[in-house]
């Protein structure tokens, strides 16, 4: 925890248990963000991403472990930390009943800037974010993309050197997402350190120098986008069968065709593999020989879902056989990175992980 370290954000062994439901939202997470870079924190809903951000931004205290921002401890020096961080979240924490300008001025005042400085800063930020025309309109009239931009603008009022962005583009249309990415790139070019959580591999790929993948409150992989992708299969073979029994049977038969465990969801089986067409043909042959009739076969690019599944698959040596078969039987353990309203609960992190 020295000021000389080149890490703007450091966390060691963070643990957070929510007593309600006894959920271990964070189970020993460590991370570092180099000054002036973006760290992408990837994970499905309920992985612990938001909990990590809330601890690093002083909103929550960890049960154990410690974290510091530019050398300042997030628990012992919370007030100092609050002066050097900005936080923008998927919950778009802005006041709907105020105008864009009033929102920024409010955050400026609450960051202890003078009236005059907050006013000037509001004008500048509205202009930078293309919101000058909308600045005096009540936020209720804003589109989703405008709201996120304003949320980000509000986070930048006090010119924080460290920025936390919690799923900044979840639920946005592609154009708004592109716009926001450009803004973030601009900030980083100017020296800001960013910790970004996301469910989108593409987003982390574009913005982050380093990526950490979390699931069930643990770090399950880390590295640069390139190294992580190299570890993944390049396509997914999806087999549809008549029912769940047939799917489980097929999964056993084809499991030797991929390094990753087959994932069963109801009557479908999915394999993450390097060479999709070849494995697809092998699957057909194998199932035909075993006289398992198939209803459909498809090849597709891996989604973030597949990334997580593949990553948890890598860990499967540590998993007991019972756990694995329970997962396969349940089929429901597929996590879907659903956008929008379902996530709009600050507690979702805790509850989903149950």
């Amino acid at each position, binding site marked *: 925890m020295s000021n000389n370290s080149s890490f703007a954000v450091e966390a060691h062994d963070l643990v957070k248990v929510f007593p309600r439901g006894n959920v271990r939202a964070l189970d020993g997470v460590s991370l570092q963000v180099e000054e002036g870079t973006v760290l992408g924190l990837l994970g499905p809903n309920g992985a612990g991403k938001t909990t990590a951000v809330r601890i690093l931004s002083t*909103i929550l205290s960890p049960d154990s472990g410690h974290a510091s921002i530019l050398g300042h401890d997030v628990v012992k020096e919370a007030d100092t930390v609050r002066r050097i961080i900005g936080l923008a979240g998927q919950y778009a924490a*802005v006041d709907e009943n105020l105008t864009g300008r009033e929102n920024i001025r409010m955050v400026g*005042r*609450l960051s202890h800037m003078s009236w005059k400085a907050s006013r000037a800063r509001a004008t500048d930020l509205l202009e930078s974010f293309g919101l000058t025309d909308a600045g005096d309109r009540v936020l209720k009239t804003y589109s989703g993309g405008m709201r996120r931009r304003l949320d980000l603008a509000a986070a930048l009022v006090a010119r924080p050197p460290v920025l936390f962005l919690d799923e900044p583009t979840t639920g946005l249309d592609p154009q708004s997402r592109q716009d926001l990415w450009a803004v973030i790139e601009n900030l980083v070019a100017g020296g800001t350190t960013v910790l970004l959580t996301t469910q989108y591999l593409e987003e982390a790929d574009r913005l982050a120098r380093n990526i950490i993948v979390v699931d069930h409150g643990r770090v399950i992989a880390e590295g640069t986008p390139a190294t992580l992708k190299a570890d993944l299969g390049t396509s997914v073979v999806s087999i549809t069968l008549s029912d769940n029994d047939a799917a489980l049977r097929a999964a056993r038969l084809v499991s030797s065709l991929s390094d990753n465990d087959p994932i069963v969801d109801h009557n479908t089986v999915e394999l993450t593999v390097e060479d999709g067409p070849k494995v697809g043909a092998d699957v057909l042959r194998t199932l035909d020989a075993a006289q398992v009739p198939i209803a459909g076969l498809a090849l597709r690019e891996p989604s973030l879902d597949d990334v997580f599944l593949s990553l948890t698959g890598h860990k499967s040596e540590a998993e007991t056989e019972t756990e694995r078969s329970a997962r396969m039987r349940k089929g429901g353990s597929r996590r879907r990175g659903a956008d929008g309203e379902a996530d709009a609960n600050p507690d979702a992190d805790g509850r989903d992980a149950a």
Partner: protein
Amino acid sequence: MTTIAVPTITAPAPSGHRLRWTVADITTVTWRNLLAYTRIPEALFFSTLQPIMFVLLFRYVFGGAIPIPGGVPYVDYMMPGIFVQTVMFGAVSTSVGLAEDLQKGLIERFRALPMARSAVLAGRTTADAVRNIFVVIVMTGVAYAVGFRIGDGAAAYVLGALILLAFAYSMSWGFAAIGLAAPNSETAQVMAFPILMPLTFASTAFVPIQSMPGWLQGFVRHQPVSLVVDGARSLMVGGFYHSTSSVAYSLVWIAGLLVVLVPLGIWRYRKVN
């Protein structure tokens, strides 16, 4: 989208005068809450209309059937009761407002800012107190229109109104705690009613205590709404209802409620995660 002003590493600002910034933070949050009220004129209109309906209801529908001692017109008797009912029901908006801020993630943002911890609650309750001042002024006009007359002079009337406002302020800290405990704003509203209804109506606000069964009188006589209404009535109506002890008791209740409910609200705020 043009280039963004580049942030530079800023040295943490000196904390300066803590108290001065606490006051500034409370002022900012109050300003924000009051501004939000003006942005929903419908809510303002209907929340003012509702107590007016109650005035008309008790003045012209129920009033004739409620005998009161002291030879005072019922309209004079009931007005302090209507006032207390109005500010009590208005305090629900403290719950609802905070539950909404929590739900929408605004409190998360506040908690990551270097502002005073107490300002979120203090700003909310202060804004609600300002709104109550406005309501009491409007209601005084309505009261006059339906025949209410001040008993002991303007100064006593204003003092009576201040007791009501202080009581409402103390209660709003309790309702703040409810709002922070509620899972959402709709529930916050529903949660407040089981507290509001018995306190407001099982009191001396609208009917004299003598008309109630004996077992209820014990509760009614000592509960805060009765004592605050009696205190306010003593000052606003005076005459037969003059009672220095009621004024004293209402002040004791207000002080007691503040001592208990302010820390309760703050404790609840700290517990929110």
